[in-house]
């Protein structure tokens, strides 16, 4: 098998056995990116020189035999939402076209400290607002399984880079499904951890009460390996949880005997693609055969989640994005009459249409006279959604659902009507509103050979049971071994 198709744990073994050096590996990936990224367009920036430098450092570390982690020398990519010291960070927006952060985001620092090699920064929907990566101000990323289709979003560049073999693994962010939905569309594993499990420091904020960073990988083992490095308390993030980090790889057992799996009836609805429904139902049978039992559950407020999300997330975004005003960094409009004129022109020139739409919606729902009817009402319904989960988790250990109602859709199919696009997040949004962990992993293919994602939701801070369930299923199936086969 080609090196670019291997997982973190497979490459770690090769690096440790000195079958290959990190430099050789990094050069192989840079070559692969050169060969296929013109077609896939997963990267906004490729950091060739930096990655070669990091690879050489990693090789020294590997040679010394000291302080080696499973990520040492392994080439990965990161979503362009994470601040990287000295490397342009755009958030796929024109307003940050020339922004070069003077510091690393907390997770970037952790990955670098572990010895990971960062190949570059992935394309995404501008400010993580979107479900298809079509809202990037730079270009559209293509789905490696079918280049006429979207890779999902907003972490679409990250997902595509993993699926096309342009990196070993990547990291994304998930505010309403932005890790899980592209993972599902591209046939890879993606985990949104419990809110607060991973530091948000240095991650450009979209909706602060929902945003979480997480791994996007070729299999569940890699996902656990990445979490071991990414998770943990950070005093620089006041919403970070001060709880011990378990060794997530210890959860990778096939022991699901006695595990109760909740199946919510609200997730098997009209509009659910028949191939997706069949794949998810088959997956439930696989876990049943391994000794898990199934409980029918109800999450009665599911139908309200999108409405709540598009009020809460836009309100938080309108506040977070106020910082892009042309004063301290980023784009500034020319020839302004005065300060106010400069603000308004800078923001009109710098933000794309979806970002403006969400800032407008959020500003409206927070404005005088509408706050109670919109933002407050949405936050109260959010409580009801959270309670739904608290109730059902008394009866089951994990919840199984499809990740998305359909496989990857065609480029341009949903851009005309924002509301239709919003509805593609219907199964992923509640998880963020409730703050619980959620993972998507491959569970089959449609008749057109498009990947299908299975979503596993867990209790707060119980990523271990989620990973265990995912691992048990994965080990009994072959889906994770299929590659998109993008030609060099």
């Amino acid at each position, binding site marked *: 098998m080609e090196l670019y198709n291997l997982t973190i744990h497979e490459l770690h073994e090769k690096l440790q056995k000195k079958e290959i050096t990190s430099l050789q590996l990094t050069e192989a990936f840079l070559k692969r990116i050169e060969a296929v990224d013109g077609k896939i367009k997963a990267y906004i920036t490729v950091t060739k020189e930096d990655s070669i430098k990091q690879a050489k450092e990693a090789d020294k570390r590997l040679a010394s035999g000291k302080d080696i982690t499973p990520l040492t020398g392994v080439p990965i990519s990161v979503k362009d939402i994470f601040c990287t010291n000295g490397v342009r960070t755009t958030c796929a927006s024109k307003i940050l076209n020339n*922004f*070069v952060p*003077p*510091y690393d985001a907390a997770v970037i620092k952790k990955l670098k400290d572990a010895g990971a090699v960062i190949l570059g920064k992935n394309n995404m929907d501008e400010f993580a607002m979107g479900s298809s990566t079509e809202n990037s101000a730079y270009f559209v990323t293509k789905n490696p399984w079918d280049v006429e289709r979207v890779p999902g979003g907003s972490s679409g560049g990250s997902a595509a880079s993993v699926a096309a073999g342009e990196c070993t693994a990547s990291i994304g962010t998930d505010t309403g499904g932005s890790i899980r939905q592209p993972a599902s569309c591209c046939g890879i594993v993606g985990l949104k951890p419990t*809110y*607060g499990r991973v530091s948000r420091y240095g991650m450009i904020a979209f909706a602060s*009460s929902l945003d979480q960073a997480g791994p996007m990988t070729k299999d569940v083992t890699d996902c656990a390996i990445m979490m071991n490095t990414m998770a943990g308390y950070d*005093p620089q993030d*006041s*919403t*970070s*949880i001060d709880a011990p980090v378990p060794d997530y790889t210890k959860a990778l057992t096939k022991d699901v005997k006695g595990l109760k799996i909740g199946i919510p009836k609200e997730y098997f609805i009209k509009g659910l693609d028949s191939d997706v429904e069949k794949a998810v139902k088959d997956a439930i049978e696989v876990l049943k055969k391994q000794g898990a039992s199934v409980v029918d559950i109800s999450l009665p*407020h599911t*139908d*309200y989640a*999108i*409405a709540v999300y*598009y*009020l809460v997330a836009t309100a938080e975004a309108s506040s977070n994005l*106020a910082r892009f*005003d042309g*004063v*301290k*960094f980023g*784009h*500034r409009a020319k020839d*302004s009459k*005065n*300060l*106010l*004129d*400069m*603000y*308004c*022109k800078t*923001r*009109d020139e710098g933000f794309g249409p979806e970002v*403006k*739409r969400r*800032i*407008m*919606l959020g*500003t*409206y729902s927070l*404005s005088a006279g509408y706050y109670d009817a*919109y933002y*407050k*009402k*949405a*936050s*109260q*319904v*959010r*409580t009801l959604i*959270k309670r739904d989960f608290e109730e059902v988790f008394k009866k089951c250990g994990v919840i199984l659902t499809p990740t998305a109602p359909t496989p990857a859709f065609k480029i341009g199919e949903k851009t005309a009507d*924002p*509301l239709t696009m919003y509805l593609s997040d219907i199964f992923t949004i509640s998880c963020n*509103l409730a*703050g619980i962990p959620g993972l998507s992993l491959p569970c089959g293919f449609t008749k057109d050979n498009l990947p299908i994602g299975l979503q596993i939701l867990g209790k*707060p801070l119980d990523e271990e049971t989620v990973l265990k369930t995912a691992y048990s299923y994965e080990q009994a199936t072959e889906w994770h071994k299929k590659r998109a086969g993008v030609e060099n």
Partner: protein
Amino acid sequence: MAITKKDVQHVATLARLALSEKETELYTEQMGKILTYVEKLGALDTKNIEPTTHTISSRIFRKDEAKPSLPQNEILSNAPEKAKGCFKVPRIIE
């Protein structure tokens, strides 16, 4: 929910966005549709329900101690305009 062009213009001013005429018309239509969609929340009785603004309750505070921050030249390195160690902006008072 009917939202007028005048409402959209007012919100644009609050949001510091200089929208074009075309954008104003488009957002009037699209925001109207989205606001109609979210009206479904009105069907739920939320009397006496506490709003959730953060899903984790533990707010962690740290000691108020001075610590080193990034040096001034690095903070200013991304400034569109700077002068004498400060961010420079267009005239505020006419």
